[in-house]
């Protein structure tokens, strides 16, 4: 099974294991839900046949993770000491950041555009069918998976 279709720059930043952990979590979520249409969408995302970010527009995903979204969308209050410590640590982490090369940026941008088009198409299709369509393995076969690009 191919890995989720996500930003290549993110893969470079997170290194080995991240994509696999993400895939495992998506499959876990698919196995846990009774909603077959939602499960099929999660499996498409897990296998890289549907970009990860389609989940942001997925009403089932938003409903399932509403509490976590609320929490993460509100930065916590930090006292002065913890704020200063975090700022220092982030500054040190920033010094270790490897900026992408011009070639990598251009390649990344092409990938951004590719995923944007796929995302828009996928969301439009599911909006038209009320997010009720159960996607099978035969769906989206014509879309190239990340490993085949």
């Amino acid at each position, binding site marked *: 099974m191919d890995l989720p279709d*996500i*930003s290549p*720059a*993110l893969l470079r*930043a*997170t*290194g080995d294991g*991240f994509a696999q*952990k*993400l895939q495992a*979590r*998506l499959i876990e*979520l698919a196995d846990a839900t009774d909603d077959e249409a939602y499960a099929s969408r999660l499996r498409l995302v897990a296998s890289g046949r549907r970009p*990860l*970010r*389609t*989940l*942001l*527009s997925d009403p089932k995903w*938003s409903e399932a*993770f509403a509490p*976590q*979204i609320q929490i*993460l*969308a*509100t*930065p*916590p209050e930090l006292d002065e000491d913890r704020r200063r*410590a*975090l*700022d220092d*640590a*982030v500054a*040190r*982490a*920033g010094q270790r*950041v490897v*900026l*992408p090369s*011009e070639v990598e*940026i*251009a390649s*990344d*941008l092409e990938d*951004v*555009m590719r*995923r*944007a088009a796929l*995302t*828009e198409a996928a*969301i439009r299709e599911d909006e038209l069918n009320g997010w009720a369509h159960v996607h099978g393995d035969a769906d989206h076969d014509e879309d190239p998976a990340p490993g085949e690009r």
Partner: protein
Amino acid sequence: MTIQVDTSIVRGGADASGELASQVNGALAYFDGHIDTSQSWVTGALMDWLLAEHSTFASNVESGIKRSKTLMVATQGALEGVAQRFDDTEYDAQVDVRDLFSDLDPTAATTPITSSTARQGLTLDSPVAALVEPESSLSDPAFEVVWNILNWPDYLSLSYWGRQLINAAVQLIRPDLTGGQDLFEFLAQKLSGDWDKVALAGSAFGHVGQFFEDLAATVQNLAVDLFAGWPSGNGADRAGEYFAELVAAFAAQPEVYGDLKTKYTDAAWAAWGACQAMLSAIDTLVDAVIAAVMGVESVAEAIAAIFTLGGMAPAAAVSAVIAAAEAFSSAWGAMMTATTAAIAAGATLGAATTTIEFVPIPEA
């Protein structure tokens, strides 16, 4: 000694000068059509800074082209005057035409152009052939999405909450980056503008420079041909000096226009590099916050890991924010200080440090 002047050749020179005056008029129209003096393409702080002198540059360019036209018209008038005086007088040697030619450069005694002066090779059929449509690969419609920062959330299919998540992550990890302002509004304020039009303006400046290069060569050849029919004598020497100074003034322009082309084109490409990098960085952040929502990695644990320094690598969301902030700082720093080796370092140096030294066109 009787000086025999072929006034038909002199009149031919006058006509040719008039034709060149029309061509310079064409350059003025080209300037009006392709160099936006109102700077309607300036919106972001970066472009505002890089092109603070645009109105001054544009004014100098317009003034130079207008003076060039006036000079060619004056040249036409002077040569017609020469032909008329020689036609009216039986003894050419007694005709004084020096007063018809002003001293364009009183500070120098310039070597006059004569019939023996070498002709210059021309790259174009005529100077006006240089005034082609400006071109820039940054004007490719496919690049429009990169320039349109405020549309990035829609382009990246960011839901309302997606945008909230991104801003919250930035606010937590790098509150100094936007100071609490929405990331997209912040970036638009800094980086936006019709940079493709800046690149086109750079191309247009380059073509005007090419126009002047060809104009200088054409005027020199006009003068060489002229003096074949107007042998050396006081009047011809004074006119020869006039033409030499005219050619020199025109020939000094291409370097200035080349500098303008470099400055504008390099600025546009530096902005392109920055926008590309930021769009890619934000794209990364979007996927990172989705993973964080699903608990693929706990942001709280990752922040704790940052504190321990040698601990686990920070969570994707944390890394993504740091990387995005660093990318922005790098791109912005490179453009503002021209000292950082970054995306478009070479272009940045050109944009930030090239000063434009205009060489004035003499008054007629």
